[in-house]
């Protein structure tokens, strides 16, 4: 029963991951399967028998996979191994996932690639620690097809009662974590019962043999029927042609479609789907395909932007929840920063809260945890610096999952949930539906070429007396002298005009900031470098201001503590607030929320004004001067370096 020709044009190797507690017989099961299905190279078994004899060991099927010296010595599998084998029906790749507690990251690396999972349980031991943990991981990795094998039936005299007892115990746990299993098979890997052949030892079992279970599994299908998601992987330039490359994660796109990019909200028409050798007739591409496209308009697009239809884009948010597993030795803690990646999107995030810590043993939850240790599972809230295109895992299994990096290393992963968070794109929609945006024929790039720089908002936030206005005015003067079109929006001047109807209640403060954010965005869109200097005490309000101009908004935290500011008290306001003459004064009887992830921190307590001004000027220049963005938008020239 070797590889047969009728399988030539079938889809691909079906990935099977085999998990379970240490020594419950995963590697033995695989070794035996390979032998029974005729998938071993000639002489391989004899070769291993000779090695065992030389070492004075009994032959074990697991030695087949344990190609490493270290593994033979320790008698446990260290890393995921991929083994190809075939039944009469199709080809498989088995991912041998190790059972040792230390090696969870390897098991996850294996299981994440699989179409289906096999959970191995020892008939003599029943459900153990890693049985539970691995089953929970399969659940968290989104694996839908699970079969259980009760192994080592030879050691319990093929007793149907033992099988039924272990079966009941296993089903109970799987049910508690929301995993359904259609197949529970009694086997003996050592003796070869109920794998490829049924054997004579368990006539009482009427279900499918393990190989028949394999053949009954369905392939994970490419999600072509979900909304289009095309994360841009890179931008290549060939002479005058700019090609956006990437893999379609979900959905389908056609030549001639209008494609909408997040988070920039730019759109253009697909003029061609490119491939090589060139095939002009290519009209359509679907989920799973790595492609290139060209557009009719030279909009700003770079790696990490996500293409979709105009009608069904991802949500935009800088905050989301994730159900994560943690792999790093250093615990995850509230306030820690990590890099996340999903699709081709990469962003810095900060852990805002650990909402629930979950014990995979007994599923107990802890709502007061301050850290997540290695190999633990938790629901956390993450806050990103930028507005990100986000799809919850429940609606997009491909993009709705993030990998967390700590420095160079993968530290964890998890599924995205947007429960309780509004789409910041939809919340920013105008109340009246009869408003139509004017479509500008002058693009930001054209303006930037005229002025030599892009428009942007630099949002100074900090306590009263921290130095916002002083710095903004000094910076404005300096960059104006450097030929940048700069303008300061100051708290006091706006309060006299545009916002003269507003007071200092939390609602009025929020409306104050919302209006200023919109005005700043309008000015920036017209090409101006806007310096806004407002206390803007609430993080949520500053985020709204950012949402008005997500790609050119820079939050600058002007840092000085309350005592310092009160000591400076340039307008005598703290004195009045302390005396009760001013109510709801920020820092005294109204809170100030310092930024979690400011784009720049300027410490006016430690540094003199000149240093602070220079710091801000350098930052502004680096972010608005023409060259940088122009190149990114044009793409890289593919050439020999």
């Amino acid at each position: 029963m070797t590889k047969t020709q009728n399988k030539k044009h079938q889809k691909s190797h079906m990935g099977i991951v085999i998990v379970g507690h240490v020594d419950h017989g995963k590697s033995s099961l695989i070794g035996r399967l390979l032998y029974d299905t005729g998938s071993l190279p000639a002489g391989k078994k004899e070769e291993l028998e000779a090695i065992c004899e030389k070492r004075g060991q009994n032959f074990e099927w697991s030695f087949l996979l344990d190609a490493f010296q270290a593994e033979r010595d320790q008698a446990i599998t260290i890393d995921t191994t991929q083994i190809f084998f075939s039944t009469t029906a199709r080809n498989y790749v088995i991912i041998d996932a190790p059972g040792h507690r230390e090696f969870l990251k390897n098991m996850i690396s294996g299981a994440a690639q699989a179409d289906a999972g096999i959970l191995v349980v020892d008939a003599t031991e029943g459900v153990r620690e890693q049985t539970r943990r691995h089953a929970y991981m399969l659940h968290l990795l989104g694996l839908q097809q699970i079969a259980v094998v009760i192994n080592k039936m030879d050691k319990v005299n093929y007793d149907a009662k033992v099988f039924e007892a272990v079966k009941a115990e296993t089903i109970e746990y799987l049910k508690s974590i929301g995993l359904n299993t259609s197949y529970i098979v009694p086997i003996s890997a050592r003796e070869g019962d109920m794998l490829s052949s049924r054997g004579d030892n368990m006539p009482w079992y009427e279900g499918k043999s393990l190989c028949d279970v394999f053949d009954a599994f369905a392939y994970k299908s490419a999600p072509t029927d979900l909304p289009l998601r095309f994360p841009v992987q890179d931008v290549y330039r060939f002479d005058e042609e700019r090609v956006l490359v990437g893999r379609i994660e979900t959905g389908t796109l056609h030549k001639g479609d209008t494609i909408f990019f997040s988070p920039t909200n730019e759109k253009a028409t697909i003029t061609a789907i490119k491939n090589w050798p060139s095939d002009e007739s290519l009209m359509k591409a679907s989920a799973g395909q790595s492609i290139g496209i060209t557009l009719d308009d030279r909009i700003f697009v770079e790696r990490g932007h996500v293409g979709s239809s105009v009608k069904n884009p991802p949500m935009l948010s800088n905050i989301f929840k994730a159900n994560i597993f943690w792999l790093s030795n250093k615990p995850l803690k509230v306030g820690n920063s990590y890099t996340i990646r999903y699709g081709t999107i990469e962003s810095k995030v900060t852990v805002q809260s650990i909402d629930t810590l979950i014990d995979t043993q007994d599923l107990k939850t802890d709502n007061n945890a301050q850290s997540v240790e290695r190999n633990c599972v938790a629901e956390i809230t993450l806050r990103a610096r930028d507005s990100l295109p986000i799809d919850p895992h429940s609606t997009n299994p491909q993009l709705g999952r993030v990998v967390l990096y700590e420095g160079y290393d993968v530290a964890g992963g998890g599924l995205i949930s947007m429960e309780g968070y509004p789409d910041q794109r939809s919340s920013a929609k105008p109340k009246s539906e009869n408003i139509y945006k004017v479509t500008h024929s002058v693009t930001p790039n054209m303006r930037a070429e005229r002025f030599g720089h892009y428009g942007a908002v630099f949002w100074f936030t900090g306590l009263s007396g921290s130095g916002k206005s002083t710095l903004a005015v000094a910076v404005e003067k300096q960059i104006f002298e450097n030929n940048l079109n700069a303008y300061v929006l100051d708290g006091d001047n706006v309060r006299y005009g545009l916002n003269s109807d507003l007071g200092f209640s939390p609602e009025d403060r929020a409306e104050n900031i919302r209006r200023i954010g919109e005005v700043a965005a309008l000015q920036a869109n017209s090409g101006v470098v806007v310096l806004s200097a407002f206390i803007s005490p609430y993080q949520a309000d500053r985020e709204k201001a950012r949402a008005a101009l997500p790609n050119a908004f820079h939050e600058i935290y002007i840092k000085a503590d309350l005592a310092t500011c009160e000591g400076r008290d340039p307008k005598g306001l703290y004195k009045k607030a302390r005396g009760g003459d001013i109510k709801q004064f920020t820092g005294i009887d109204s809170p100030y929320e310092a930024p979690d992830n400011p784009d720049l921190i300027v410490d006016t307590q430690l540094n003199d004004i000149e240093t602070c001004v220079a710091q801000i000027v350098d930052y502004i220049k680096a972010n608005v001067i023409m060259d940088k963005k122009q190149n990114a938008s044009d793409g890289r020239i593919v050439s020999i370096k």
Partner: protein
Amino acid sequence: MTDNNLQDLESRSLYIIREAYSRINPIGMLWSIGKDSTAMLWLVKKAFFGQVPFPLILLDTGEEMDEVYAFRDWLQKEWDLPVINHICPTLEEMDQTLPPNTRAAMRKTEGLKTLLAEHKYKGVICGIRRDEQGLRAKERVFSPRSLDGAWDFKDQPAEFWDQYKTEVPDDCHMRIHPILHWTELDIWRYTKQENIPLCDLYFAKDGMRYRSLGEKSITKPVPSDADTLDKIITELETTNTSERAGRTMDKETEDSFEKLRSQGYM
């Protein structure tokens, strides 16, 4: 109609190649001129719409077969390829305690070290496959190495959901394996579907052919009548002999390949 399986494999490889080019710089690709790395070269051309945006490196011991050199010279000219022919250190410079054929293979490992030292590559694209050999089955797609090439297989990075470890500290480099998930048969079917040029030695002459091309001294032909791509595919669909059966170094001691790998062999 193209084969769906091959299309899936190809799309995945293109994604990996573009990811490597996007994230790692400077980067080069090892081109041994064999069927695997030549199929991979074809994938590179696909990824960059006909261009090859990084150097193709032959770790040259001077011991490849004449037909291999001839094929390289021809294809380099035909496709205008950016080839670097990197000369490996001599046999005398190798660890003399190794068995003789393993020692010969070690020259490539040492050659790679001198290559990295000279060109400062942060990434090396490499055409190994999981089904070739038990140890290669353990590999990651993005596999970090210390500068001397050592592979810490006991502590490999987690790799899932197509997110790779793409950054390495200064004293390390990354091996990138874009065809890790392909089988020998996949390579042949793809070679046929795409009409990828190939060295003549793979086709049977006088009842013998090479199934895998290594250096003269350590590679032997196997009995076969397969003198066309179709016949080779049919042969592989029914064979039970391992691909590297013609490579002598793997069998010298049970651990020799492992030793080679952990010290930096491809």
